[in-house]
């Protein structure tokens, strides 16, 4: 609430940076990171939020992420001493080597692979994938739960409780799975619910359920390919079958 108020009142970079500092001092690291990412989006020419975010990543030992963010800052202000000091602080020669690796990977389009092994939070990787799907017309939300119905990730454009919606759909999915197994039809892979208020597309494995809520008037077959593709990538990120 406080954060929203500050952003809507002034969008002040100083205020955002001060608040991020306050979050860091109070060990609210994820909140600080989110705030700094917002600050970067709103102030693309300012290097301060990049530096603050870079410091957090360095503190966490996430060198690849720190290098990437500091490199972006360096592109804005190549001679900035704070940025150079931060890069120095990580060990100059190693940083240069890391930069080369990141650059090579970027050129080859392999950055995602590097991030996967470099300890970037899974949530960020999943969010990146699911955001692509959420941009498709007619997609109202995505819920990712484990086989027990516990929420892994959710993004809903509907006034629904994410946890209970995921749990309910998972319960029904599991019940249908028992039924198909009872008739020797193998493991359940996909369920489409066509309901009065919209459609629900569920893709499942032994350990996760990928639930996509779609508007009623959207033909689900037109989105099926895209949904499957993102589901496969999400499985790879989570390293599940």
């Amino acid at each position, binding site marked *: 609430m406080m954060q929203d108020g500050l952003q809507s009142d002034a969008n002040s970079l100083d205020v955002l940076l001060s608040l991020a500092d306050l979050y860091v001092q109070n060990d609210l690291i994820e909140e600080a990171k989110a705030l700094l990412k917002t600050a970067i989006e709103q102030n693309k020419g300012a290097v301060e939020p990049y530096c603050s975010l870079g410091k957090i990543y360095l503190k966490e030992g996430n060198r690849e992420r720190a290098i990437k963010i500091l490199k972006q800052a360096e592109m804005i202000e190549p001679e900035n001493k704070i940025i150079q000091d931060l890069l120095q602080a990580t060990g100059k020669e190693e940083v240069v080597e890391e930069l080369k690796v990141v650059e090579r990977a970027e050129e080859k389009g392999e950055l995602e692979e590097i991030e996967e092994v470099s300890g970037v939070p899974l949530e960020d990787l999943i969010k990146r994938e699911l955001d692509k799907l959420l941009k498709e017309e007619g997609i109202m939300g995505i819920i990712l739960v484990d086989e027990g119905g516990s929420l892994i990730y959710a993004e809903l454009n509907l006034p629904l409780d994410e946890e209970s919606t995921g749990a309910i759909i998972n319960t029904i999915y599991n019940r*249908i799975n028992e039924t198909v197994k009872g*008739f*020797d*039809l*193998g493991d359940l*892979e996909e369920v489409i619910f066509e309901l009065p208020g919209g459609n629900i597309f569920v893709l499942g494995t032994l350990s996760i359920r990928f639930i996509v809520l779609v508007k009623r008037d959207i033909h689900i077959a037109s989105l099926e390919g895209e949904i499957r593709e993102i589901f496969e990538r999400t499985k790879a990120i989570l390293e599940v079958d």
Partner: protein
Amino acid sequence: MKEILDDLISTKGVLGCYIVDKEGSIVDFKGDENIDENLISALVAEISNEIANQMNIPGNFSISALAGNGSIFMIAKKDFILTLLSTSDVDTGEVRLKLRRGAKLIAELL
């Protein structure tokens, strides 16, 4: 009603089709003798009730459940559930279309 079931069962890959009331009793069916129709009717009614209770949707919904070796399709209307069991090589589009048409005709008959 037999004609509707005959039309459904004639589709390649369809193993059986069943008209089940909301209490789980078979109204009519046609299909493979090895499939226990009483078991399928009970399970279908249970799933339908689960959706009705959990999602608060009393009727008029459909489910397509695709598994490794076959599929189950269900269309629930106010008074009945039309269900179809198939192998995995069934044309899902054709089956769903026929089910919709069949369910509409059955609703008019009942």
